[in-house]
């Protein structure tokens, strides 16, 4: 593919700039980096460029080279030419050449383009150097194995030294700007790869002493010095004479990479000051006497010529040197002293900031108490000087509240008014209604700090700053109350209230009028209800609680028919509580008649919901019932009904949890939706391992049906327990569930009675499930181990016949079993006690005729309508023959098993 036309490139570049990610994902995205590099070198595009420069060779003879350059620049600026291609590579190398290999290739190509430029003035050399540097640094290709790095670094250093690099490097007119550019490139590489220039420190020093450009060299040397000091102190090494070596590092061999640092471990240049203290304290470098002298000389050299730098560059130099010297033992910061005379009076934002950094770094060692007072006075004035811009004022005000004092009193890292900043000095810094919102808040913060101090000094009495604060807040409230005023005004009033509550929460003298003022504001403009809700959410109880009560009174004292009903309801949902429910309820009852649309109904229901959470009671139940009938909207009616059901069925704590706010779901307009995930989770049944153990107690053997006695133990308190049983194989009729209100571990519980309705007289397995509420309000469901109903559990006695007729009663039963039934005989082994204890232990309730020790007649009723009769006759020492009859042949094997089971137990 040949090079693109200028128009095509213009289109492509603007598409890329609009959205690099979309553009890179597009069909041509991957090729952009490659196309860019090839077109940079393409003859055709340069020809296009030449078209625009047709006059320039001629001009070159007439005008100075500078004028030609200007023409060239103007041309290049206005056409999507090579310069704009380079601009793109300066901004988006990470997208164009995302990995080290492509970045290396790109840098190589850019360097080739640079070398091949014809030896006449060109606007491309500078951006090409910048682009190659950027590509290498960003792509992570910078390193000893990268060929492009090994080409670029000596080239940059050579240019920085002002060496003659031959005709290829353009006319001499370009040497000086290129020298500065090379320094900038080296500085950027050093920033990204600290220590890179460690070996060139001496060289840079000597250059600075000669005629090199002061600013680029100063900044480069300062950065390299700082990085070297940090790296060497971390490595526990000294400066190793690095400041004195004046050898070109690539004179004969390759670049010295040994002093560089892995760039994944870039050290913070300006960490928070206290942190820096600790860090440096641990690894402080103690240079030798000779080294210290050289170091001082280098720093002094940099500082002495620093006035020649632009203010922003001077500031950078001060930050760097301050940081460099901080970590050194025995290096008094007095070197900075001569500069301070000049700097304390600076009107430059960056310089004043740098002075504050020095102040924080060196404190008393560099700044006397007078210096401190002077700095404070200057900051105070700068923070209000009419010739400075509002953003500057605000930044100075911030500096004032974070001022690095020589002897700080307050806790570290918290904004506070400096000790020397008395009320008199603050005069001009206090807020007034005329200020814009940011300035007002910043100044209000200062005023709050002053009031807080004031209170400490003279408790009880109302002081002037407090009085002023009151007036200011009243003014803000008055403005916020303006009908139809912008929301920003209201926001400002609430922000101010929040600040006051935060800093002066313990001062009732300030809070009381604030609360009254806010209540008045609500009266004037209920439309601000969302702001009130937000304020109540954000402030502590000192303001929040009295304000809540006040606002509640404010709302319920209205008639519910107010046109601002929607806002009243919104606020009421926030401020309602369990006390004085009747006033709330009567307000709501009035309001209900006016809640004609869905939004209002939802707002009304939200208040009910809030009431449900904090209390309950008959009044609310009545209201909900009325709403469930009366509301027009079916959604509203359903909701009222749901709340009513919840109120009627859930205990207080559970209601609270069920209706509590959820952290997961955002607040939404509908109360229905607001029954959010938390609510759903609270109402939904959770599957859980059983904290309950069930066991069968002794059978009761009385009444018309068999009844199981269940013993229950719990491992944690549970509420509203419901036990559900299911009979396997439908041997019995479906069983009723058992309900228990509350069970606690360690507290003996009454046995639970489970009546059975057998459909046939057979043992069975019962499947058991438990549904219960945990103390946290969750409803859980557990599957318990199955319960076995034994054959004997179904035994019931016959009604006892009169004393004289028992024998005949039994015989009638015995005879009636046949012929449809069955008969059997078994030998039942007995223990050493004989037959009597055997009977009384297992069969006592069913004995009809007893003639101990030899004969027992036993009749057992087996629901639904079977019988089992046993005759124990002529017992012997080791056992007894048992004759058994039943009218249901299916019972016979069960009975046999039962008897054998009894014998086995013996």
């Amino acid at each position: 593919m040949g090079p693109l036309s200028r128009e095509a490139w213009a289109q492509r570049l603007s598409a890329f700039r609009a959205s690099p990610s979309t553009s890179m994902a597009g069909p041509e995205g991957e090729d952009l980096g490659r196309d860019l590099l090839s077109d940079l070198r393409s003859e055709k595009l340069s020809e296009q460029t030449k078209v625009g420069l047709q006059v320039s060779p001629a001009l070159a003879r007439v005008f100075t080279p500078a004028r030609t350059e200007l023409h060239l620049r103007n041309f290049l600026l206005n056409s999507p030419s090579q310069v704009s291609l380079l601009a793109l590579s300066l901004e988006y190398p990470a997208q164009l050449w995302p990995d080290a290999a492509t970045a290396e290739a790109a840098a190589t190509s850019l360097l080739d383009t640079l070398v091949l430029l014809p030896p006449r003035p060109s606007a491309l050399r500078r951006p090409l150097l910048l682009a190659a540097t950027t590509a290498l640094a960003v792509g992570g290709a910078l390193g000893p194995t990268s060929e492009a790095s090994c080409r670029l670094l000596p080239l940059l250093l050579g240019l920085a030294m002002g060496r003659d690099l031959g005709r290829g490097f353009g006319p001499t007119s370009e040497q000086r700007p290129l020298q500065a550019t090379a320094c900038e490139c080296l500085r950027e590489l050093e920033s990204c790869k600290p220590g890179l220039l460690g070996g060139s420190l001496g060289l840079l020093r000597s250059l600075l002493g000669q005629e090199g450009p002061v600013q680029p060299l100063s900044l480069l040397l300062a950065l390299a010095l700082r990085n070297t000091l940090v790296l060497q102190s971390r490595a526990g090494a000294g400066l190793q004479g690095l400041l004195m070596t004046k050898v070109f590092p690539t004179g004969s061999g390759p670049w010295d990479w040994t002093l560089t640092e892995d760039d994944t471990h870039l050290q913070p240049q300006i960490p928070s000051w206290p942190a820096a203290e600790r860090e440096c304290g641990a690894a402080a470098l103690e240079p030798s006497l000779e080294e210290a002298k050289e170091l001082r000389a280098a720093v002094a050299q940099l500082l002495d010529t620093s006035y020649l730098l632009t203010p922003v560059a001077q500031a950078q130099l001060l930050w760097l040197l301050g940081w460099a010297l901080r970590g050194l033992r025995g290096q008094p910061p007095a070197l900075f002293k001569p500069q301070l005379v000049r700097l304390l009076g600076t009107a430059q934002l960056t310089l004043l900031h740098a002075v504050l950094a020095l102040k924080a770094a060196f404190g008393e060692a560099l700044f006397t108490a007078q210096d401190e007072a002077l700095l404070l006075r200057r900051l105070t004035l700068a923070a209000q000087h009419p010739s400075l811009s509002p953003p500057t004022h605000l930044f100075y005000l911030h500096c004032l509240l974070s001022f690095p004092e020589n002897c700080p009193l307050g806790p570290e890292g918290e904004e506070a008014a400096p000790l020397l900043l008395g009320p008199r000095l603050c005069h001009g810094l206090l807020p007034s209604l005329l200020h814009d919102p940011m300035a007002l808040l910043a100044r209000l913060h200062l005023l709050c700090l002053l009031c807080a101090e004031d209170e400490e000094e003279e408790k009880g009495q109302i002081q002037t700053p407090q009085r002023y604060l009151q007036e200011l807040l009243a003014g803000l409230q008055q403005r916020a109350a303006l009908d139809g005023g912008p929301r920003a005004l209201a926001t400002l009033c609430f922000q101010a209230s929040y600040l006051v509550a935060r800093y002066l929460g313990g001062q009732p003298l300030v809070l009381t009028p604030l609360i009254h003022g806010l209540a008045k504001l609500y009266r004037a403009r209920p439309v601000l209800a969302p702001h009130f809700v937000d304020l109540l959410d954000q402030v502590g109880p000192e303001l929040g609680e009295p304000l809540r009560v006040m606002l509640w009174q404010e709302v319920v004292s209205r008639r519910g028919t107010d046109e601002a009903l929607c806002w009243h309801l919104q606020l009421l949902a926030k401020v309602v509580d369990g006390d004085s429910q009747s006033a709330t309820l009567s307000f709501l009852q009035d309001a209900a008649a006016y809640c004609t649309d869905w939004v209002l109904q939802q707002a009304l229901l939200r208040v009910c919901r809030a009431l449900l959470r904090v209390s309950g009671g008959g009044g609310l139940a009545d209201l909900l019932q009325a709403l469930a009938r009366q509301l027009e909207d079916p959604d509203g009616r359903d909701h009222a009904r749901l709340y009513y059901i919840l109120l009627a069925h859930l205990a207080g704590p559970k209601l609270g949890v069920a209706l509590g706010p959820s952290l997961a779901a955002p607040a939404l307009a509908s109360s229905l939706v607001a029954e959010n995930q938390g609510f759903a989770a609270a109402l939904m049944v959770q599957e859980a391992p059983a904290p309950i153990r069930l066991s069968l107690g002794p059978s009761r053997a009385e009444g018309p049906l068999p009844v199981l006695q269940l013993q229950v133990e719990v491992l944690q308190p549970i509420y509203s327990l419901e036990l559900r049983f299911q009979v396997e194989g439908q041997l019995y009729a479906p069983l009723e569930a058992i309900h228990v209100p509350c069970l606690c571990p360690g507290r003996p519980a009454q046995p639970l009675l489970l009546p059975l309705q057998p459909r046939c007289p057979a043992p069975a397995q019962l499947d058991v499930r438990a549904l219960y509420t945990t103390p946290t309000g969750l409803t859980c469901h557990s599957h318990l181990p199955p319960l076995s109903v034994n054959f004997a559990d179904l035994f019931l006695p016959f009604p006892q016949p009169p004393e004289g007729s028992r024998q005949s009663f039994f015989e009638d039963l015995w005879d009636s079993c046949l012929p449809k039934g069955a008969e059997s005989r078994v030998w039942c082994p007995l223990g050493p006690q004989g037959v009597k204890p055997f009977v009384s232990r297992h069969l006592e309730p069913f004995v009809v005729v007893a003639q101990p020790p030899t004969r027992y007649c036993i009749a057992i009723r087996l629901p639904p309508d079977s019988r089992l009769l046993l005759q124990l006759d002529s017992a012997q020492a080791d056992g007894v023959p048992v004759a058994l009859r039943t009218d249901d042949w299916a019972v016979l094997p069960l009975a046999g098993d039962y008897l054998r089971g009894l014998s086995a137990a013996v």
Partner: protein
Amino acid sequence: MAQRAVWLVSHEPGTPLGGTVRFSRRYPTVEKRARIFNGASYVPIPEDGPFLKAVLFELRLLDDDKDFMESRDSCSHINKTSIYGLTVGGEELWPVVAFLKNSMIYACVPLVEQTLSPHPPLINISGISQGFELLFGIQDFLYSGQKSDSELNAKLNQLPDLLLQACPFGTMLDANFQNSLDNINFASVTHPQKQPAWRAGTYKGKPQVSISITEKVKSMQYDKQDIADTWQVVGTVTCKVPVPPILGFYQVKEEEVQLKIAINLKLHESVKNNFEFCEAHIPFYNRGPITHLEYKISFGQLEVFREKSLLIWVIGQKFPKSMEINLSGTITFGTKNQEKQPFDQICIGGTAYLKLHFKILDYTLTGCYADQHSVQVFASGKPKISTHRKLISSDYYIWNSKAPAPVTYGSLLL
């Protein structure tokens, strides 16, 4: 001390997006350092589209303030500096230095050379003040001598190249963009001698040093017993003075449909009675247009701006011999039209002010001056020394004494 990115966004209320990104520049080498320094708290620089949206929202410049929005209107969301956290893609981009000036948002993101969580104090971040200077520099460049939109566009087109000079890698070399422009234009000039970086080209004219002292005087006058009047003079030299230069009172009485006003101004005898200009602006906020005006004036002329509901009393160059002047009158207003007549948050009800605008050349209230014979210049050549003085009014208010007025702190302390 480096910047990760810089933007210029024009604020265009009423348009669908609310603004346009007019210029942006990213610094990938700085971004690479940010990723390493910030570690887990690193948030990448967004593309222009998402940035535009986020910055307009955070600066409250989108038109929809109808509904309460917690992320913007919450009382705890307080910004006390021009440094913001922007929500972009669910993450917070911080610190963003941004301010609005002449419908243009200037914004940049300074590199923070440590973790961002928790936010380090702003005073510890060198890039903050550097960022401010960069933005101020751009602002000065765009608006120095700029008159029309086309001139602004031309300057915006020059910006990429200027930044390539003044801030090639995100670390600023010079906040004065005019110097950078000179640098480009005079690139050929060689500099044999050591020369300040802020003076790149050699100046061909006569060397001269100009020292000018400008004082700005602020005043709040209430004409009330329980509130003290205040004044403050700030300038190159700052000090307190015994009197404000012009003392006065302003009385407004509302009588049914009309306002009665009475104004008295008195120049202090110690003040030089020679103004470059002196005017009293008398605005009437939150009312309709002026429909009828009757007035009596002892000196000067009264200009009436009916639609703006504004009176300007042009006092001129001198006060009369008596040093005292009066204005009284009756004003009737028409029906209020929200769009045409000015709205003000403070001048509600009877609260009203007049504001004095004046300038006196060759004069300072403090008496401060520079003696041109005592100025020493340590440089080769003999520059011509000139000195100037002037006094300018700045926020010089006289409040209606018949109604409440916003009180400044000083008024209460005294």
